[in-house]
């Protein structure tokens, strides 16, 4: 019995470590794209819309994250498409999508018997729900994202920076933007288990905010964000496990602590330089 327990602990830590590493890589790469292109609000819309998919899939007895992925991808493509049609008031459309997804999700989760513990997990994240299958799926997706962002680093960067110009140089800007929209949607959904719907976007923005305190170069922001994200996620997950608090909340705390520490170091350095 004791042995089994030790094994479980061991497995928990390897799973947590792997999930944390993969999530920080995904969030580092995709989050830098989100922050640089200033689509944080859009990404928030996609995240919350995906809850509708979770609710429906959960009600139908399917894998909730499959439902989330479908909802997220379609909202991401829809938003990218409507942005191209220019005249839609984008922010109100996103707000509607945001709340509609949450409403659908809540209705269906509540209509499913025995919902409560899982609802908490979806909303706030739960490290204990990370399975080996999740890790394998996330690993495959992370490999694709890494490869695509290395191979097509410049087309992605140029399109994010100035899509009109990129298009005049012959890049297929539409293909790049739609592909990235799908990547954003899937990266967010794959991180929901760890941080939950409500807090997941912080994984994609706080490490970047911290990184941008020390560098302003796209590539380096990715690098530092992965590092800070990994430290924050592992610290947060451990705290979550030992204190029995939803992992989303502890991770955010850890990430913000990193941001504060860097800010403080810079502040002190500036003070010393002044003298």
């Amino acid at each position, binding site marked *: 019995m004791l042995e089994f327990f030790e094994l479980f602990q061991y497995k928990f830590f390897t799973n947590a470590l792997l999930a944390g590493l993969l999530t920080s890589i995904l969030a580092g790469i995709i989050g830098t794209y989100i922050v*640089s292109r*200033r689509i944080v609000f859009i990404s928030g819309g996609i995240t919350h819309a995906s809850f509708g998919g979770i609710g429906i899939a959960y009600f139908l007895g399917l894998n909730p994250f499959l439902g989330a992925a479908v909802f997220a991808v379609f909202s991401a493509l829809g938003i990218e498409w409507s942005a191209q049609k*220019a*005249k839609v008031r984008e922010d109100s459309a996103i707000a509607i999508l945001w709340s509609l997804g949450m409403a659908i999700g809540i209705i269906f989760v509540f209509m499913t018997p025995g919902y409560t513990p899982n609802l908490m997990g979806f909303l706030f994240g739960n490290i204990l729900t990370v399975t080996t299958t999740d890790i394998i799926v996330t690993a495959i997706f992370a490999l694709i994202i890494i490869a695509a962002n290395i*191979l*097509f*680093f*410049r*087309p992605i*960067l*140029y399109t*994010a*920076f*100035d899509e*009109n*110009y*990129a*298009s*005049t*140089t*012959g*890049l297929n800007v539409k293909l790049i933007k739609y592909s990235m929209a799908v990547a954003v949607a899937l990266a967010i959904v794959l991180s929901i288990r760890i941080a939950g719907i409500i807090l997941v976007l912080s994984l994609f923005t706080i490490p970047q905010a911290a990184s*941008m305190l020390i*560098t*302003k*170069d*796209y590539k380096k*922001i990715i690098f530092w964000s992965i590092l800070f994200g990994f430290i924050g996620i592992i610290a947060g997950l451990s705290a979550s496990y030992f204190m029995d608090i939803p992992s989303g909340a502890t991770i955010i705390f850890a990430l913000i602590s990193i941001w504060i520490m860097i800010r403080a170091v810079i502040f002190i350095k500036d003070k010393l330089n002044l003298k």
Partner: protein
Amino acid sequence: MDSLISLHNVSAGYEPNQAVLRNINLDIKQNDFIGIIGPNGGGKSTLLKVILGLLPIQKGKLNYAWKNNKHYIGYLPQSNEIDTKFPIKVSEVVLSGIMGSKSYFGKYSKSDKNKANELLDKLGLTEYKNNTIGELSGGQRQRAFLGRAIINKPSVLILDEPNTYVDKHFEGELYNMLSELNKEMAILLVSHDIGTISPIIKTIACVNEELHYHNSNKISEKVLSTYKCPIELVAHGHVPHRVLNQH
């Protein structure tokens, strides 16, 4: 001489049935230097987007002298169209102008990088090449974008108000540079300041929904009003000396 780019009865706009530009005729030939003027909102930037193929036309014909226009046009967008806080390095911005002649993987060769470095030097940006564009002054940033537009030696160079935020000293240098470049490429230069660009341009296009072509680099208020192209011809006390000296 054959046209590099020609527009024949082109109408274009952002909404169906709502033309911002109407019946535009324009031929761009080798070594042309066309100053594009007109009131705010008259459609100057829109015309450039049509020429660049960024905005589909609603009516008429748009022809290029080459099969695929992507590698032949250099473009400096109006400054409000660029996110200056985007985390991208100056050298990367200039290099991005070569993208058109590269594969999708965008690997740059040693000679590409040398070309970029030479250009950065010419533009006085060498010491800033590893800075991000947000760390530059407005004028330095415009130079970086000029570098991006010309690094690939385009046949047509299109500039949308490049003198925005540019200090008077560099404005003169910019115009000298454009005169030099004009020997190798046609140039379209949008400006709200006809007085300053008059010495370097060869012809004028007034754009206010319609386009009126004026086959000279000087224009009077009276002609402008017959073109329905109301812009103010303010007297220019401090035109950069270098520009004046040249002509």
